[in-house]
């Protein structure tokens, strides 16, 4: 395998070998969530509320239970009471209590001997509802007098707005955030141009192609097992245990291959129902597979947002002050990512004075889950759109303005911490130098630029590595492989040990095999599990050096590990031929027993990743349809361990961002029901919607990782929303501030502009 030319210091890091799970995944052998079955297995189906907000007056399952082959029905009455905080939220979302809080909220579940029978039985479960007033829009939900979704949960620290009396409670505001720095009045006074605009984004779904699926088994003794598609099986274990009132260690959770997650599979939805049904059905395993409609109605999309942004800029493009007020609804539960959105909003820029204000608002929608850089794309849409509009007003080049204000190593970030080594400037320079930035544009075409940011994450990590009898190496990790992390972890392990890539097998193992691992989230799998695997490999290498030293009869300090073998450290250490990993492994049974390495930690040294995107669009003035002509992603990877999968993350993030920008949205009817819970109507980008997506991997190595890795998964979804809005503004002269920019909205904006 040829190495990429720019990388010379490593043998394997930076190469593009075949991924170890590739063969299984092109032959149909890889086992995903719904592919798993057990002897004696039952099938579960879930009864869901057709109402956005309704009191549950009565549930009668007698007709369902009368069917031959129906083995169990569970309702909230089968779950323990007295939970608090997020555990209660999870339980309430798993199964409605007194009130169904959104269209699709689970109210009962049934297990039967076949999937069809379970569905038939679910239809026979009678639920009597008393419909309550509902609210789904964030700007409506925040108003005093909006239907109270969780009476008593309001954050009373929210100050009354203009024209309101202190007793006008905003029932649905459950969290109020304020932070910032500098003198904001002074900052705006120093600006030559101050602009303030309001932006809205609609809820979108991660849209992983694999619906949630699990098989759960639990006996009366509270011991259980689960096989499930998830980004994090320890999270599944902890959350299921909390919701069901069992002990975490009694539940063993094995992850399947995962058909996409993007943050949406870091929490529980129907998993506790499978376990509860199994317990009630005498311990027979129960399989639950969601339909696509269930995925869209009842799993976690991202928040919808309404955002005010105000920015001050001098004539030469220097930012003097900024203010952001973001309102987000994340469904009927606290947890809209308004905090993250605010932390990221101004992160690319050094601004002397900033004020951030955020409101987490309840609405009658499903509980939001993480979606790739949660919150960041919305904030970037608002801020990067306004900066672009101001560049246009002042006649400044958008990349020059971003370079002028870009954060660098040692700068204090907008959200507090001081940046270490970062690569925003390098991404901007690479974008400016790329041929895409100077392709001549035709009529109705426009070019847009935007930058984006994500923190990245370390997180609880436990990795175990063992040397096999033949000198090959197995690595056990707890982070499910969503997009090639087995390959990147194998590359780093092999590089560290100086052995062939093919000699390392990386296994994603179950909860019983390792200490606690956070999910594959926060762009952390290659960073955190990779860093831990390198540490574990070094530990094993030290032990192998000790074994060699013992055989040679010299001090262990006089032995070094190099190129897959223990060697004397220098001429003074003695003249011994290298002792290879295979030789040491073949004799380990008689030299002290198995050789392994472990690493458990919350890895520090996380490196933030910045990116800059350049997009060219053409807008049909007759229909308002936007075509992406070319698309460039430039992002700092720190170090690309397997460049193909880094490019894949960049391209995938861009494609999801394009969908969010142009087409995807949760459409609710006046009745509060989701109108588009199928892929035909919730339309994600298809192959014919997109061009090739060009990538430039910038490498500003992260000093906090042995190979310089930053984590690359999330940043890429952040710039597309504003970059496309900025391109459409150039192409049409119309500025869109409400996503998605679908043909009707773009056409209306063009017509409004033409009317003047």
């Amino acid at each position, binding site marked *: 395998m040829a190495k990429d030319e720019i990388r010379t210091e490593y043998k394997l890091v930076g190469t*593009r070998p*075949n*991924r170890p*799970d*590739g*063969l*299984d*995944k*092109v*032959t*149909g*052998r*890889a*086992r*995903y969530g*719904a*592919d798993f079955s057990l002897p004696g297995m039952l099938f579960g189906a879930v009864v869901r509320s057709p109402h956005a907000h309704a009191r549950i007056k009565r549930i009668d399952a007698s007709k369902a239970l009368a069917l031959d082959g129906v083995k169990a029905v569970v309702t909230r009455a089968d779950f323990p009471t007295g939970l608090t905080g997020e555990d209660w939220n999870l339980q309430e979302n798993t199964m409605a209590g007194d009130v169904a809080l959104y269209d699709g909220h689970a109210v009962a579940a049934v297990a039967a001997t*076949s*999937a*069809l029978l379970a569905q038939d039985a679910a239809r026979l479960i009678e639920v009597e509802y008393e419909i309550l007033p509902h609210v789904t829009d964030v700007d409506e939900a925040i108003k005093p007098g909006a239907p109270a979704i969780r009476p008593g949960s309001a954050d009373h620290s929210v100050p009354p707005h203009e024209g309101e009396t202190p007793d006008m409670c905003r029932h649905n505001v459950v969290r109020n955030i304020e932070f910032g720095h500098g003198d904001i009045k002074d900052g705006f006074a120093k600006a030559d141009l101050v602009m303030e605009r309001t932006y809205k984004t609609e809820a979108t779904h*991660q*849209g*992983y*192609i*694999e*619906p949630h699926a699990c098989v759960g088994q639990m006996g009366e003794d509270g011991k259980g097992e689960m096989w499930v598609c998830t980004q994090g099986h320890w999270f599944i274990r902890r959350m299921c245990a909390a919701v069901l009132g069992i002990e975490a260690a009694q539940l063993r959770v094995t992850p399947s*291959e*995962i*058909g*996409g*997650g*993007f943050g949406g599979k870091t929490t529980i939805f129907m998993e506790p129902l499978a376990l509860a049904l199994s317990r009630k059905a005498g311990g027979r395993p129960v399989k639950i*597979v969601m*339909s*696509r409609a269930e995925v869209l109605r009842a799993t976690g999309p991202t928040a919808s947002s309404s955002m005010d942004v105000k920015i001050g800029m001098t004539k030469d493009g220097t930012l003097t002050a900024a203010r952001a007020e973001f309102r987000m609804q994340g469904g009927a539960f606290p947890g809209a990512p308004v905090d993250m959105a605010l932390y990221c909003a101004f992160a690319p820029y050094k601004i002397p004075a900033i004020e951030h204000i955020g409101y987490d608002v309840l609405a009658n929608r499903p509980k939001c889950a993480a979606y790739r850089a949660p919150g960041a794309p919305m904030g970037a849409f608002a801020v990067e759109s306004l900066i672009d509009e101001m560049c246009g007003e002042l006649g400044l080049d958008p990349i020059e303005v971003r370079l002028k204000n870009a954060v660098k190593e040692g700068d204090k970030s907008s959200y507090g911490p001081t940046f270490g080594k970062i690569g925003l400037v390098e991404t901007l320079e690479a974008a400016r130098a790329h041929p895409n930035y100077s392709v001549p544009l035709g009529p109705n075409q426009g070019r847009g630029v935007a930058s984006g940011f994500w923190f990245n994450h370390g997180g609880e990590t436990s990795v175990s590595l063992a040397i096999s009898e033949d000198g090959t190496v197995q690595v056990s990790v707890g982070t499910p492989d*969503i*997009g*090639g992390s087995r390959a990147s972890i194998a590359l780093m392990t092999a590089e560290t040990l100086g052995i062939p890539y093919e000699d390392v097998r990386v296994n994603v193992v179950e909860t019983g095999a390792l200490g606690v691992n956070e999910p594959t989230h926060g762009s952390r799998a290659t960073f955190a599990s990779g860093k831990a695997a390198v540490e574990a490999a070094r530990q094993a290498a030290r032990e192998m050096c000790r074994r060699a030293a013992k055989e040679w009869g010299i001090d262990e300090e006089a032995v070094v590990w190099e190129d897959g073998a223990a060697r004397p450290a220098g001429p003074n250490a003695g003249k011994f031929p290298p002792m290879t990993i295979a030789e040491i492994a073949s004799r380990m049974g008689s030299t002290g027993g198995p050789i392994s390495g472990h690493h458990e930690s919350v890895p520090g040294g996380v490196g933030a990743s910045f990116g800059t995107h350049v997009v060219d669009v053409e807008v049909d003035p007759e229909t308002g349809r936007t075509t992406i002509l070319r698309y460039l992603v430039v992002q700092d990877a720190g170090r690309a361990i*397997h460049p*193909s*999968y880094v*490019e*894949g993350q960049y*391209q*995938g993030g*861009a*494609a*999801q961002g394009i969908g969010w920008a142009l087409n995807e949205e949760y459409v609710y009817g006046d009745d509060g029901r989701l109108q588009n819970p*199928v*892929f*035909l109507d919730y339309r*994600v*980008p*298809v*192959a*014919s*919607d*997109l061009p*090739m*997506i060009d990538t430039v991997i910038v490498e500003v190595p992260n000093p906090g990782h042995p190979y310089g890795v930053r984590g690359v998964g999330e940043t890429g979804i952040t710039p597309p929303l504003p970059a496309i809005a900025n391109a459409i503004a150039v192409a049409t002269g119309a500025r869109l501030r409400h996503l998605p920019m679908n043909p009707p909205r773009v056409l209306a904006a063009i017509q409004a502009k033409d009317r003047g």
Partner: protein
Amino acid sequence: MSKIHVTTSVNGDPVEFLADPRETLLDCLRDHLGLTGSKEGCGTGDCGACSVMLDGRLVSSCLVLGVEAEGKRIDTIEGMANGGELHPLQRKFIELAALQCGFCTPGILVASKALLEKNPDPSEEEVRYWLAGNLCRCTGYDKIVRAVLDAAAEMRGAA
């Protein structure tokens, strides 16, 4: 509901199963024949993860009833490799990193093979429109389209 006996052929092998008349061909392949390589992403014919060949025609097996398979020939992802030898498309998908999570991959491979049988020299645009019924949420399609074009070129060279 009483079940119906279905005799058909899958990947060249004769098979029989009992189908509930409401079950889709996809249900029957996965649940009765243990062929779980074909995936259900939507159940409404929008995602293409369940793509199979039915008498040489590309179909979404979630939109075909199991009982309709009677007397037909079905080809699935499990029959795509020739014994131990991968189809050039399968090989190119691995080599060019044309999959991330891999869930849409079986359907995309089956659909791409059907394209190359009809049109051994497709343009990028033809590949994109042919695969417009196969959703991938991970890759942005770039590497998928390249892998299909590359496999087509290799197959033309070999022919």
